[in-house]
């Protein structure tokens, strides 16, 4: 029982932004959404609105104001995360509110739109907002799932250690490969000089490195070794193969790590630029609505 209690306590201290303060912000977001739905019903459904103009209703103004203010506040997370505090508005609390209030925007903005879509700035703002939210949902998911996998995979080695190890192996490879013939030495040199740990965007995200020079060298040299009798040459090759294998293993681990890290990062490449685009489109939306009033 004591053990159980201890585990519970440990879980509480490692409570994520998802469960922060017993889902406080989830509750707030649900309340806000319900209030907006109630407002929608009160204003437009009860008013028997036959006209598809939600703009000049109090619901239109109110939901629009709430939505716009929310968007600005949500975007301020980028500023907030650079400031350290530890009170009730800890970064974790802030992120929790960011996630749940961000999700409630789906309800607020959709009802605000009155489902009037078209090829215009208004729908652009809505589409950008939905893109930000969807990428945010992806980000939230990977933040919940991936960190555990990441530390499992890394087995307590740091990024720097992985790099150092690969570098050390490279140095040894160049040294050990000296007795090899020209073509084999060239393979080793290419494995040392031409191997890229990360690679391009897709290689990072999919962890597919089909043409990795290290893997190539390993394959070709292993085949060569199997056709070779024991001897000095073979002994040198064995050493090279052993180093290549180790490098390959290290690379695999580093690349799996990179893939996970890339998943953690990739959504931000949509989330952040789209947020700024959204704020620009939102400004244009608001100004244009009142400009051609």
């Amino acid at each position, binding site marked *: 029982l004591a053990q159980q209690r201890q585990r519970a306590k440990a879980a509480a201290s490692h409570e994520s932004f998802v469960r922060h303060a017993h889902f406080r912000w989830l509750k707030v977001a649900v309340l806000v959404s319900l209030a907006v739905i109630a407002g929608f019903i009160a204003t437009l459904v009860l008013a028997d609105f036959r*006209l598809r103009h939600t703009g*000049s209703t109090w619901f239109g103004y109110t939901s629009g104001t709430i939505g716009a203010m929310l968007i600005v506040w949500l975007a301020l997370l980028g500023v907030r995360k650079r400031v350290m505090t530890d009170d009730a508005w800890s970064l974790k609390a802030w992120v929790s509110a960011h996630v749940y209030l961000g999700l409630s925007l789906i309800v607020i903005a959709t009802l605000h739109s009155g489902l009037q879509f078209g090829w*215009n700035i208004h729908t652009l703002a809505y589409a950008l907002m939905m893109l930000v939210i969807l990428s945010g949902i992806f980000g939230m998911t990977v933040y919940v799932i991936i960190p555990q996998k990441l530390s499992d995979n890394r087995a307590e080695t740091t990024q720097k250690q992985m790099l*150092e190890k690969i*570098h050390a192996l490279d140095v040894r490879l160049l040294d050990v490969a000296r007795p090899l013939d020209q073509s084999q030495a060239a393979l080793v040199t290419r494995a040392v000089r031409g191997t890229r740990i*990360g690679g391009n965007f897709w290689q990072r995200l999919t962890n597919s490195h089909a043409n990795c020079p290290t893997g190539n060298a390993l394959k070709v040299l292993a085949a060569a070794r199997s056709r070779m009798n024991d001897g000095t040459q073979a002994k040198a090759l064995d050493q090279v193969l052993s180093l290549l294998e180790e490098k390959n293993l290290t690379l695999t681990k580093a690349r799996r790590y990179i893939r996970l890290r890339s998943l953690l990062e990739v959504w931000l*490449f949509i989330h952040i630029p789209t947020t700024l685009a959204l704020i620009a489109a939102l400004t244009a939306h608001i100004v*244009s609505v009142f*400009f*051609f009033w």
Partner: protein
Amino acid sequence: MSFILRQISKRVGAPDIVREKPLVATEPVIGRGSDCDIQLTDLAVSLRHAVMKQSGPGRVTVESLGAENFEANGKFVTSASLALADSPVLGFGSHVLTLSEGENGAILVLATARENTAPISAADDQKRAFSLKYALFSQRRLAWITGVFIVLACLLFPIGVFVIDHNQHQTISAAAQRQWSSGPLSPGHHFLEKNCEACHQQAFVSVKDTACLSCHQAGLDKQAAAHVEARSRGLGSPFPPDPAGDHAPHDRLMAAAPPDPNLARRINSWVAATFSHPNNRCASCHTEHVGTGKGADSSKTHAPVTPNEIKRNDCKDCHTNLKERLPDTKIADAPDWGRHPDFSPVITTGFRGDTPVLQRIALSAMPVEKDGLIFGHDVHLSAIGGVARQALELGKANGYGAPLTCANCHRAAPDGGFVPVDMKTNCEACHSLVFARKNGRDQLLPHGHPPEVVAALKVYYANQPNFSATPEVFMGRPGLRGSAPKAGRAMDYVADSVRAAFAPGGTCTTCHTFMKPAVAGALDYKIVPVRITSRYLPWGDFNHNVPEHHLDANGATTCKSCHKAESSKLSQDVLLPKIAECDTCHGKTKGEIATAAGSDCAECHGFHNTGLPASPRRQQLAEKALIRTQ
């Protein structure tokens, strides 16, 4: 048995430094940590990487303490059992440990750092390897680029065009501003799609009625109407603008409207008004930019505006208990078709000078139309008698040839009414105004004004070469009886002729009433003015051209089912049918009668331009719902 550690530090251009010390621990730990017995300063080495044990005489086992492996004789392992005789070589990162048998049975550990292992992993390399940023792009740069692009293209460009261009170049304006349009315009306004400033005349000001009325002003004179049409054609309109008047002054319309019974809608109106979007504007009901832009078959033809997209108030909202809100109104309530008040036609009750006095009198009050005319429909429509006889005699060549019917005088006009009855066209074939024949030509008295008749006679007789003689021919029909004048002077002829026209029993008195001259013997007879009503119900839009309005069940033209003309002896009779006549079709269902028709107010009344007859153009607009006539 013990371990002796000999560490060799290589230096560039200087002798190696050799340090040697016996290890206290029997099982020395290899690692980067300072508590390790064999400390290897290399980040590729774990803090506590492996432990070394003597497993037997001349044998040593090395085992990893964590997940990290190490190199033993060129192979990467986590555990190795080694014979000292082979001089085994262990690799930890950049460090090499060579084991051999030392003095006194101790195990000598020779630790050297490999050459050329300068530390390479700067923080930058790490980021390059692990962060996605270096494989993709800078988030911040992309954010700024897209953000600035959107502000320029979607905000500053349209505003700039509005301020600078003023719609001079429609292509540019359209490109700039159409992205702000929340939806297509109604079909009638489709041509304005590229011309935002036609309606949105001022920035940050809601569309004003003046913008609408710049094309749709009603009651313009011909010149102004032509100007407005030219203007709207210039804007690209395929048709002339439809004038839109109010069916009552704007302030009275507003005062007549009851407060919305729907609280939610009332709050909406209040908020809209607060945000300078008052709901008493044209655009409050005629909402634009709300269509889908697609026809029912999702073709490119624009969908008609549905009534729901325009209609705001029902007529009955105002026209129920109207007196409570407009105490001085003369309009009776019409809450629905079943409770529509009796027709109150516009009746000429007399004349003040030459101006007719018009008054709305309910049919039930048996109004008498003092139109100034002496006329009996019964005589004219009778199948027997003098009129029928004369019509037969006139023959088909003159458009007669049979007893008279309604159509002989009343010709349908395209607007749903009738071409006004005219003396020359409709009466003169029988009621001749010929008073003489000269040089083989009939001499006609002018119709309309007694002074002109006198003047014409004077001219005629003054130019008579031999006035003492009788005129060439005296027409005895139907007036100017009494063949020769008593006297032989021209003026006597004139006086006699004038009296023969205007005095009781005279030619003109068949249809008109005259007042004798104030001085006996004078010729200034005065005629009682005539006003023939063309629209008894100017607020309704009754259309005689609707087939059901003039055909009977067999498709034959029938006027008499509504207008009891055959029995009307006097032109004072108001031949308008009672509303019950409309009721035979309107408000009925198809089950009750084949010609059933709607009972909506808009069947007969228009919200705007209610006094105008239903022109073909308006009919077309209404049918295609390009505009809504309610």
